[in-house]
């Protein structure tokens, strides 16, 4: 369960450019799929980065599975991200010089796990998202949809309980976006929380059960 209590995030505090990205956010998110909707600059990505532990709030509590992550020291925050969070970025953020398999293996590098065991996990998630046939390919030889699947596999390989997707379909055509939503449906069957920040209307057209949260100018709307 993810809880946010009175969360504020202000950038450039006490400067001329001061900007409130989030104001008084109070949320409780259970297992399942949650879609955060809002226009660009509404605060969706900021909210995801606070839940992911990439950034800290200016004030307020962010609690994930009972752990107040907004207060975690950096050392523990890294462990939290490695063990609990899978993140799918809008621009995929894959390492171009590595192969698909190596990119997916990367999050396991710092974990106390046998290499053979790690490779088995990588094979499993590649099959799950349908990218096994490109395992040895270099990232720069992949299409947008394949890159997306590789990014999803990388997010899944650590078996996180929370998956965060920031504008996951923004760089995909309709066909690949639909494939992505199909993958989401299969992931939804396991006990996970999946949060998708998007303004893509394709999610409205699909038969996908999810909770919707609207964000306007850093505030939760109806």
């Amino acid at each position: 369960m993810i809880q946010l209590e009175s969360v504020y995030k202000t950038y450039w505090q006490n400067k001329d450019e001061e900007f409130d990205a989030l104001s008084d956010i109070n949320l409780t998110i259970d297992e399942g799929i949650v879609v955060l909707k809002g226009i660009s600059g509404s605060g969706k990505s900021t909210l995801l980065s606070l839940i992911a532990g990439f950034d800290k709030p200016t004030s307020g509590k962010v609690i994930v599975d009972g752990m107040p992550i907004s207060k975690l020291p950096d050392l523990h925050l890294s462990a939290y991200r490695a063990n609990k969070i899978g993140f799918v970025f809008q621009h995929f953020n894959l390492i171009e010089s590595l192969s698909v398999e190596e990119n997916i293996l990367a999050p396991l590098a710092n974990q106390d796990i046998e290499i053979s065991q790690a490779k088995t996990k990588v094979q499993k998630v590649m099959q799950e998202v349908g990218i096994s046939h490109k395992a040895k390919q270099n990232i720069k030889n992949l299409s947008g949809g394949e890159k997306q699947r590789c990014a999803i596999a990388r997010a899944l390989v650590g078996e996180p309980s929370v998956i965060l997707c920031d504008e996951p379909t923004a760089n995909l055509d309709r066909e690949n976006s639909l494939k992505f939503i199909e993958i989401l449906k299969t992931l939804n069957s396991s006990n996970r929380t999946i949060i998708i920040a998007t303004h893509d209307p394709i999610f409205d057209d699909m038969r996908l059960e999810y909770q919707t949260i609207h964000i306007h100018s850093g505030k939760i709307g109806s």
Partner: protein
Amino acid sequence: MDKILLNSEVIIYLLSKSLMMLLLFVAFLYSVVILKDWDFNQFTPKQFALENRSYLVSVIIVFALILKSFLILYFVHTIDALSEFVPGAMCAAGVIKANIYGNYLLVLSLASIFLSFVWMSINAMDIKSLDYPYMRLKTIFFMILFVLLVVEYGLDWLYFTHIDTQKAVSCCSVIYGKVGGGIPFGLDSVKLLVLFYLLFVLIVLSVWMRYVYISAISTLMFLVVGYYSVVYFFGTYIYELPTHKCPFCMLQHYYHYVGYLVWGLLFGGVFLLLDSLIMQIFFKEKSIHLTKVATVMLLLFVALCSGYVMVYYIKNGVFL
């Protein structure tokens, strides 16, 4: 005095020390704010800002203290290099006695390095925890350490500005030669050596059997006995001269700079072991890695010292 202050080693040393003090001063100012306003149970903007800042402050302090630990080696090198300007001085032993501040400065430098090690251990425990349990303690400790470092910095300037290049000093041949007196505490070489090896065995056994208090006392005693053993016994084998009893000459190139290794292993090993024991006694934190590193350093120190005696005996068939 101009000759001293315009010496490149002195300039580098004082500039590095000034930079280090500037960093620590910034950290000190932030520490005052942290100490005043810290309340981990708060989720306010002020507390979040303090948490972010405290991490930055501890990184600055750790960097400055590590720099400080290496600067003592450069300090010793600097005073050794100054021996050519001070009449009568053949090594750092003469230069350190060029005025009343030298010895105080050296002792204070060593003490502050030891306290720096302790601070860094407390800091490591603090940032490993979930809720910064030692934030207040380490901040107060740092403030005390900072005062000590300010005194040391003042002594640095007093020392280097009061070296008289016209006045002759007495150096190691006079200070430590037979005329200058023998081993303290009424010990002779044999008793000193017996004590040296016995204390080392006691340290290894007590560390192995985890008798922390015995380890702490024997380590402290080993620091004193180790120092005198090097100066009055092992050093003579390094110099291959029974009357040459100087802690500084072995830092010179004639002796392949072995003094840095000898003193580095002794002081480093003792400080790290005491640090690890303090963590065990006061914080119930067992740092096996730190204890192992310290014990290995002391083992290397004993082996190095003993090696010089053995090599001399093998080469010459006699002891000095």
